[in-house]
Protein backbone atom coordinates (compact mmCIF):
# COMPACT_ATOMS: atom_id res chain seq x y z
CA UNK A 1 0.00 0.00 0.00
CA UNK A 2 1.59 3.22 -1.09
CA UNK A 3 1.41 6.17 1.27
CA UNK A 4 3.13 8.96 -0.62
CA UNK A 5 1.78 10.75 -3.70
CA UNK A 6 3.71 9.84 -6.83
CA UNK A 7 5.19 13.30 -7.48
CA UNK A 8 8.37 14.00 -9.42
CA UNK A 9 11.30 14.15 -6.99
CA UNK A 10 12.17 17.69 -8.03
CA UNK A 11 8.74 18.97 -6.92
CA UNK A 12 8.64 20.78 -3.61
CA UNK A 13 6.13 18.73 -1.73
CA UNK A 14 5.30 21.14 1.09
CA UNK A 15 3.91 23.66 -1.42
CA UNK A 16 1.38 21.20 -2.76
CA UNK A 17 -1.48 21.33 -3.64
CA UNK A 18 -0.14 23.97 -5.99
CA UNK A 19 -1.82 27.33 -6.58
CA UNK A 20 -3.16 26.73 -10.08
CA UNK A 21 -6.89 26.40 -10.75
CA UNK A 22 -8.50 22.96 -10.89
CA UNK A 23 -7.76 21.42 -14.28
CA UNK A 24 -5.08 23.95 -15.22
CA UNK A 25 -2.61 22.82 -17.86
CA UNK A 26 0.33 24.39 -16.01
CA UNK A 27 0.27 21.52 -13.52
CA UNK A 28 0.71 19.01 -16.32
CA UNK A 29 3.46 20.97 -18.08
CA UNK A 30 5.35 21.33 -14.79
CA UNK A 31 4.79 17.65 -14.05
CA UNK A 32 6.41 16.79 -17.40
CA UNK A 33 9.23 19.23 -16.63
CA UNK A 34 9.73 17.70 -13.18
CA UNK A 35 9.90 14.20 -14.64
CA UNK A 36 12.38 15.35 -17.29
CA UNK A 37 14.60 16.97 -14.61
CA UNK A 38 14.42 13.75 -12.55
CA UNK A 39 15.34 11.55 -15.50
CA UNK A 40 18.33 13.68 -16.45
CA UNK A 41 19.42 13.97 -12.80
CA UNK A 42 20.15 17.70 -13.05
CA UNK A 43 18.08 18.95 -10.11
CA UNK A 44 21.11 20.38 -8.27
CA UNK A 45 22.15 22.45 -11.31
CA UNK A 46 18.82 23.85 -12.47
CA UNK A 47 17.93 27.54 -12.27
CA UNK A 48 14.21 28.02 -12.86
CA UNK A 49 12.86 31.40 -13.93
CA UNK A 50 9.14 32.11 -14.14
CA UNK A 51 7.27 34.95 -15.74
CA UNK A 52 4.37 37.15 -14.72
CA UNK A 53 0.90 35.81 -15.36
CA UNK A 54 -0.40 32.49 -14.21
CA UNK A 55 3.08 31.02 -14.69
CA UNK A 56 4.39 33.03 -11.71
CA UNK A 57 2.39 30.77 -9.40
CA UNK A 58 5.17 28.24 -10.00
CA UNK A 59 7.73 30.35 -8.09
CA UNK A 60 7.85 27.82 -5.24
CA UNK A 61 6.94 24.80 -7.32
CA UNK A 62 10.32 23.07 -7.59
CA UNK A 63 13.05 22.29 -5.14
CA UNK A 64 15.53 24.21 -7.31
CA UNK A 65 16.86 27.77 -7.41
CA UNK A 66 13.97 29.86 -8.67
CA UNK A 67 13.62 33.47 -9.78
CA UNK A 68 10.47 35.37 -10.70
CA UNK A 69 10.88 38.24 -13.12
CA UNK A 70 8.98 41.03 -14.87
CA UNK A 71 6.54 40.34 -17.64
CA UNK A 72 8.30 38.68 -20.55
CA UNK A 73 11.75 39.36 -19.08
CA UNK A 74 12.37 35.82 -17.97
CA UNK A 75 14.36 35.07 -21.12
CA UNK A 76 17.00 37.84 -20.62
CA UNK A 77 17.21 37.19 -16.86
CA UNK A 78 17.83 33.51 -17.44
CA UNK A 79 20.27 34.35 -20.26
CA UNK A 80 22.21 36.49 -17.78
CA UNK A 81 22.31 33.65 -15.26
CA UNK A 82 23.55 31.30 -17.98
CA UNK A 83 26.30 33.71 -19.04
CA UNK A 84 27.46 34.24 -15.47
CA UNK A 85 27.29 30.56 -14.56
CA UNK A 86 27.59 28.44 -17.71
CA UNK A 87 27.52 25.24 -15.66
CA UNK A 88 23.90 25.88 -14.61
CA UNK A 89 20.92 24.50 -16.53
CA UNK A 90 18.69 27.55 -17.02
CA UNK A 91 14.98 27.21 -17.70
CA UNK A 92 12.68 30.12 -18.58
CA UNK A 93 9.04 29.26 -17.97
CA UNK A 94 6.32 31.52 -19.34
CA UNK A 95 2.85 31.75 -20.79
CA UNK A 96 1.80 32.86 -24.24
CA UNK A 97 1.15 36.43 -23.04
CA UNK A 98 4.65 36.78 -21.63
CA UNK A 99 6.37 35.00 -24.48
CA UNK A 100 4.53 36.20 -27.59
CA UNK A 101 3.12 39.59 -26.58
CA UNK A 102 5.01 41.55 -23.95
CA UNK A 103 8.23 39.57 -24.11
CA UNK A 104 8.33 38.68 -27.79
CA UNK A 105 11.34 40.92 -28.46
CA UNK A 106 13.34 39.03 -25.85
CA UNK A 107 12.30 35.67 -27.19
CA UNK A 108 13.12 36.70 -30.76
CA UNK A 109 16.53 38.14 -29.89
CA UNK A 110 17.53 35.31 -27.58
CA UNK A 111 16.60 32.87 -30.34
CA UNK A 112 18.46 34.88 -32.98
CA UNK A 113 21.58 34.95 -30.77
CA UNK A 114 21.16 31.22 -30.18
CA UNK A 115 21.53 31.57 -26.40
CA UNK A 116 22.13 28.26 -24.70
CA UNK A 117 18.99 28.31 -22.57
CA UNK A 118 15.72 26.39 -22.51
CA UNK A 119 12.42 28.23 -22.88
CA UNK A 120 9.20 26.40 -22.01
CA UNK A 121 6.00 28.19 -22.95
CA UNK A 122 2.47 27.19 -21.98
CA UNK A 123 -0.07 28.26 -24.61
CA UNK A 124 -3.66 28.44 -23.37
CA UNK A 125 -5.07 30.89 -25.94
CA UNK A 126 -5.79 33.71 -23.47
CA UNK A 127 -4.46 35.79 -20.58
CA UNK A 128 -5.48 33.59 -17.68
CA UNK A 129 -4.58 35.56 -14.58
CA UNK A 130 -6.25 38.84 -15.59
CA UNK A 131 -9.53 37.16 -16.48
CA UNK A 132 -9.32 35.67 -19.96
CA UNK A 133 -8.59 38.57 -22.33
CA UNK A 134 -7.57 37.98 -25.93
CA UNK A 135 -3.95 36.91 -26.33
CA UNK A 136 -1.86 36.69 -29.53
CA UNK A 137 -2.67 32.98 -29.57
CA UNK A 138 -6.47 33.27 -29.30
CA UNK A 139 -8.05 31.34 -32.13
CA UNK A 140 -10.13 33.07 -34.87
CA UNK A 141 -13.71 33.26 -33.69
CA UNK A 142 -12.79 32.45 -30.11
CA UNK A 143 -14.83 34.36 -27.53
CA UNK A 144 -12.75 35.99 -24.83
CA UNK A 145 -13.30 38.80 -22.34
CA UNK A 146 -12.16 41.44 -24.84
CA UNK A 147 -13.58 39.79 -27.97
CA UNK A 148 -17.16 38.97 -26.90
CA UNK A 149 -18.23 38.38 -30.52
CA UNK A 150 -15.26 36.17 -31.31
CA UNK A 151 -11.77 37.14 -32.49
CA UNK A 152 -11.90 38.81 -35.89
CA UNK A 153 -8.67 38.10 -37.82
CA UNK A 154 -9.32 41.15 -40.05
CA UNK A 155 -8.89 43.41 -37.04
CA UNK A 156 -6.61 41.50 -34.70
CA UNK A 157 -4.71 39.17 -37.00
CA UNK A 158 -4.20 35.45 -36.87
CA UNK A 159 -2.81 33.42 -33.93
CA UNK A 160 0.94 33.65 -33.38
CA UNK A 161 2.78 30.53 -34.50
CA UNK A 162 5.57 30.65 -31.94
CA UNK A 163 7.65 27.54 -32.61
CA UNK A 164 7.45 28.14 -36.39
CA UNK A 165 8.82 31.65 -35.84
CA UNK A 166 11.59 30.50 -33.49
CA UNK A 167 12.66 27.65 -35.77
CA UNK A 168 12.89 30.10 -38.69
CA UNK A 169 15.27 32.48 -36.92
CA UNK A 170 17.48 30.08 -34.97
CA UNK A 171 20.70 28.62 -36.31
CA UNK A 172 21.83 25.02 -36.39
CA UNK A 173 21.93 23.37 -33.00
CA UNK A 174 18.60 24.72 -31.84
CA UNK A 175 15.80 22.47 -30.67
CA UNK A 176 12.20 23.58 -31.28
CA UNK A 177 9.08 21.53 -30.60
CA UNK A 178 5.42 21.87 -29.78
CA UNK A 179 3.83 19.42 -27.36
CA UNK A 180 0.42 19.16 -25.78
CA UNK A 181 -0.82 18.34 -22.30
CA UNK A 182 -3.12 15.77 -23.91
CA UNK A 183 0.01 13.66 -24.43
CA UNK A 184 2.11 14.11 -21.29
CA UNK A 185 4.59 11.40 -22.21
CA UNK A 186 5.41 13.00 -25.57
CA UNK A 187 5.63 16.43 -23.91
CA UNK A 188 8.05 15.04 -21.33
CA UNK A 189 10.24 13.63 -24.11
CA UNK A 190 10.28 17.00 -25.91
CA UNK A 191 11.22 18.83 -22.70
CA UNK A 192 13.85 16.22 -21.94
CA UNK A 193 15.39 16.66 -25.38
CA UNK A 194 15.29 20.43 -24.94
CA UNK A 195 17.13 20.17 -21.61
CA UNK A 196 19.57 17.66 -23.06
CA UNK A 197 20.27 20.13 -25.87
CA UNK A 198 21.26 22.72 -23.29
CA UNK A 199 23.36 20.25 -21.31
CA UNK A 200 25.28 19.48 -24.50
CA UNK A 201 25.59 23.23 -25.22
CA UNK A 202 24.22 23.06 -28.76
CA UNK A 203 22.05 26.14 -28.67
CA UNK A 204 18.62 27.57 -28.01
CA UNK A 205 15.88 25.15 -27.08
CA UNK A 206 12.21 26.03 -27.14
CA UNK A 207 9.17 23.93 -26.29
CA UNK A 208 5.63 25.22 -26.55
CA UNK A 209 2.97 23.22 -24.73
CA UNK A 210 -0.69 23.43 -25.68
CA UNK A 211 -2.40 23.82 -22.36
CA UNK A 212 -5.89 24.23 -20.94
CA UNK A 213 -7.62 27.02 -19.05
CA UNK A 214 -11.01 25.65 -17.88
CA UNK A 215 -11.63 28.68 -15.64
CA UNK A 216 -11.55 31.26 -18.43
CA UNK A 217 -12.78 29.04 -21.23
CA UNK A 218 -15.74 28.20 -18.94
CA UNK A 219 -15.53 24.57 -19.97
CA UNK A 220 -16.13 21.36 -18.09
CA UNK A 221 -13.61 18.53 -18.25
CA UNK A 222 -15.09 17.07 -21.43
CA UNK A 223 -15.06 20.37 -23.34
CA UNK A 224 -11.60 21.22 -22.01
CA UNK A 225 -10.16 18.04 -23.52
CA UNK A 226 -12.14 18.60 -26.74
CA UNK A 227 -10.66 22.10 -27.09
CA UNK A 228 -7.10 20.95 -26.35
CA UNK A 229 -7.24 17.81 -28.47
CA UNK A 230 -9.41 18.84 -31.41
CA UNK A 231 -9.68 22.62 -31.79
CA UNK A 232 -6.19 23.77 -30.85
CA UNK A 233 -4.12 21.34 -33.00
CA UNK A 234 -5.94 22.62 -36.11
CA UNK A 235 -3.97 25.86 -35.80
CA UNK A 236 -1.04 24.68 -33.73
CA UNK A 237 0.55 21.57 -35.21
CA UNK A 238 2.07 19.28 -32.60
CA UNK A 239 5.52 17.87 -33.29
CA UNK A 240 9.22 18.58 -33.48
CA UNK A 241 10.09 21.46 -35.77
CA UNK A 242 13.83 21.55 -35.45
CA UNK A 243 16.37 19.23 -33.89
CA UNK A 244 20.15 19.41 -33.96
CA UNK A 245 21.78 17.07 -36.44
CA UNK A 246 23.05 13.87 -34.87
CA UNK A 247 26.76 14.02 -34.26
CA UNK A 248 28.73 11.52 -36.27
CA UNK A 249 30.45 8.93 -34.16
Amino acid sequence: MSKAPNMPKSWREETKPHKFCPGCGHGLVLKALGQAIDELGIQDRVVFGCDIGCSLLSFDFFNVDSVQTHHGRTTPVVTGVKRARPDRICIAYMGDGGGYAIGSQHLVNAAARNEKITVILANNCNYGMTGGQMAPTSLPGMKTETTPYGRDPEVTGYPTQGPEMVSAITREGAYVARGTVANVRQLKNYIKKALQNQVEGNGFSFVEALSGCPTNWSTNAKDTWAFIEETMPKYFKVGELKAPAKKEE
Partner: protein
Amino acid sequence: MTTSAYKMLQVDTKKAVFTLFTGLCKGCGLCTQKCPVKTLDWSETLGVYGTPAVQPKNADDCTGCGMCAMVCPDCAITIERKK
Protein backbone atom coordinates in the same frame (compact mmCIF):
# COMPACT_ATOMS: atom_id res chain seq x y z
CA MET B 1 7.57 16.23 4.71
CA THR B 2 3.87 16.57 4.99
CA THR B 3 3.09 13.32 3.23
CA SER B 4 1.34 11.70 6.17
CA ALA B 5 -1.02 14.67 6.47
CA TYR B 6 -2.82 13.76 3.25
CA LYS B 7 -5.97 11.77 3.80
CA MET B 8 -6.30 8.82 1.50
CA LEU B 9 -9.21 7.25 -0.30
CA GLN B 10 -8.25 3.73 -1.29
CA VAL B 11 -10.21 1.45 -3.55
CA ASP B 12 -9.06 -2.11 -3.98
CA THR B 13 -9.90 -2.95 -7.58
CA LYS B 14 -9.45 -6.21 -9.41
CA LYS B 15 -6.14 -5.40 -11.06
CA ALA B 16 -4.74 -2.53 -8.99
CA VAL B 17 -4.98 -0.48 -5.82
CA PHE B 18 -6.39 2.97 -6.56
CA THR B 19 -5.22 5.60 -4.07
CA LEU B 20 -6.54 9.16 -4.10
CA PHE B 21 -5.05 11.85 -1.86
CA THR B 22 -8.04 14.03 -1.00
CA GLY B 23 -5.73 16.82 0.19
CA LEU B 24 -4.47 17.16 -3.39
CA CYS B 25 -7.59 16.49 -5.50
CA LYS B 26 -9.16 19.74 -6.70
CA GLY B 27 -12.05 17.99 -8.45
CA CYS B 28 -11.26 19.19 -11.98
CA GLY B 29 -12.51 15.94 -13.50
CA LEU B 30 -9.84 15.68 -16.22
CA CYS B 31 -9.16 12.08 -15.16
CA THR B 32 -12.81 11.02 -15.42
CA GLN B 33 -12.79 11.93 -19.12
CA LYS B 34 -9.52 10.14 -19.84
CA CYS B 35 -10.51 6.85 -18.17
CA PRO B 36 -10.61 4.34 -21.06
CA VAL B 37 -13.27 2.18 -19.37
CA LYS B 38 -15.25 5.19 -18.05
CA THR B 39 -15.39 3.82 -14.53
CA LEU B 40 -13.91 6.84 -12.80
CA ASP B 41 -16.69 9.03 -11.42
CA TRP B 42 -17.45 11.59 -8.73
CA SER B 43 -17.08 10.37 -5.17
CA GLU B 44 -18.97 11.12 -1.95
CA THR B 45 -15.65 12.19 -0.46
CA LEU B 46 -14.65 15.82 -0.87
CA GLY B 47 -11.35 17.11 -2.18
CA VAL B 48 -9.17 20.00 -1.02
CA TYR B 49 -11.52 22.73 -2.34
CA GLY B 50 -14.66 21.10 -0.94
CA THR B 51 -15.64 19.79 -4.36
CA PRO B 52 -16.28 16.10 -5.02
CA ALA B 53 -13.19 13.92 -5.45
CA VAL B 54 -13.15 10.92 -7.77
CA GLN B 55 -13.13 7.16 -7.37
CA PRO B 56 -13.85 4.11 -9.55
CA LYS B 57 -17.61 3.53 -9.35
CA ASN B 58 -17.23 -0.10 -10.27
CA ALA B 59 -14.03 -1.56 -8.83
CA ASP B 60 -14.11 -4.58 -11.16
CA ASP B 61 -13.97 -2.44 -14.29
CA CYS B 62 -10.70 -0.71 -13.43
CA THR B 63 -7.85 -2.12 -15.50
CA GLY B 64 -5.12 -0.28 -13.60
CA CYS B 65 -3.82 1.38 -16.76
CA GLY B 66 -2.70 4.46 -14.82
CA MET B 67 -4.11 6.98 -17.32
CA CYS B 68 -5.85 8.93 -14.53
CA ALA B 69 -2.60 9.20 -12.58
CA MET B 70 -0.78 10.42 -15.69
CA VAL B 71 -3.21 13.23 -16.55
CA CYS B 72 -3.73 14.45 -12.97
CA PRO B 73 -2.19 17.94 -12.78
CA ASP B 74 -1.88 17.61 -9.00
CA CYS B 75 -0.45 14.06 -8.73
CA ALA B 76 -3.41 13.18 -6.50
CA ILE B 77 -3.82 9.65 -7.87
CA THR B 78 -1.49 6.71 -7.42
CA ILE B 79 -2.10 3.37 -9.13
CA GLU B 80 -0.34 0.30 -7.86
CA ARG B 81 -0.77 -2.67 -10.12
CA LYS B 82 -1.20 -6.08 -8.56
CA LYS B 83 1.23 -8.69 -9.73
